[in-house]
């Protein structure tokens, strides 16, 4: 079986359309829309956001599954933790599919960019957990915290509680990733730094040119959540670094 799949090789039902993120941003810009939806720019904000998360969870499930298989020289406990993450992500996929229906949408109504999958393809396992578990799951902490707050504002306890349930897992995934980053690079500071550099690259990518900021949930596309990042084990220094990098990202 092939290792390290490319994005074009992901199996999908044909109604789920793969469109490159650059293309999506261009088409949105043509319509005078920001690259990423905001509650006040997109009337279908909740459906679009929920759809993006749902396909993201599918990619996360596939990514963790590939990580179970892609690496030969890793501890068995690492493989088991990745297998547990596959189970978590499959549960998240089911939850978000149902939340999508809850907001009146269906899988396939919006494009899938596969940008998350692209970021889960590091060839070193330490870089992979740094990029995925700390970078992407850290992003999930931001996105889900914002969604919970928005759900509270609109008075939707189903979204609020379902997303809170998923967020608890994401916090665990971040902690697990931090743990394995440390263990896999215990005697190799250069390897650890390369993995962290990859994570910072992912963080910068998902600042989306200024779309992610520390700011009010209904005013920024993605609001950085200090509270949940702290729960996930990020240090204040790391969170401040992210906020500083996000505010320095080119404004779109």
């Amino acid at each position, binding site marked *: 079986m092939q290792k390290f799949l490319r994005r074009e090789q992901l199996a999908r039902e044909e109604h789920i359309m793969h*469109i490159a993120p650059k293309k999506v941003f261009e088409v949105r810009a043509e319509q005078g829309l920001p690259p990423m939806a905001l509650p006040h720019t997109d009337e279908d904000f909740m459906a679009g956001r929920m759809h993006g998360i749902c396909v993201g969870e599918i990619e996360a499930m596939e990514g963790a599954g590939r990580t179970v298989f892609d690496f030969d020289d890793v501890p068995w406990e690492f493989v088991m933790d990745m297998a547990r993450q596959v189970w978590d992500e499959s549960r998240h996929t089911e939850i978000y599919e149902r939340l999508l229906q809850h907001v009146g949408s269906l899988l396939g*109504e919006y494009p899938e960019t596969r940008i998350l999958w692209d970021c889960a393809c590091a060839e070193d396992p330490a870089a992979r957990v740094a990029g995925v578990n700390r970078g992407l799951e850290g992003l999930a902490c931001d996105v889900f915290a914002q969604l919970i707050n928005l759900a509270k504002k609109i008075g939707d306890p189903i979204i609020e509680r379902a997303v809170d349930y998923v967020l608890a897992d994401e916090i665990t995934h971040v902690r697990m990733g931090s743990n394995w980053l440390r263990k896999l690079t215990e005697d190799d500071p250069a390897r650890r730094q390369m993995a962290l550099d990859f994570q910072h690259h992912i963080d910068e990518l998902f600042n989306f040119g200024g779309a992610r900021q520390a700011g009010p949930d209904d005013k920024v596309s993605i609001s950085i959540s200090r509270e949940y990042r702290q729960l996930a084990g990020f240090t204040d220094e790391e969170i401040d670094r992210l906020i500083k990098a996000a505010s320095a990202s080119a404004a779109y």
Partner: protein
Amino acid sequence: MKLRPLPVDAAAEAHARHIVAGDTAAIAADCVAEVKQAPEDLYRQLGQARFGHYHILGRSRIGAQFVFRIRYFGPTVVTLHQRFAMLDGQWRVLESERVS
């Protein structure tokens, strides 16, 4: 479960029928004057192909526009992403891209 039908669906079906029929005038009327094509001579290539039928595989929303994934069947099988926007009260093709 299927996506709920929208008015743009009829425009996509009509355009697909025109391509299968090889009706170049109708195809041109469906599109904006500067329709984006990938490859650049996509519609010329489609005009030279012979298709028996089509199948709409998916419809995806980006803002107020819709991208349809449509497969055309003949001696050659071609899959396109075709983007529609509402202009002056009519759904028009802004872009057609061959994806396989």
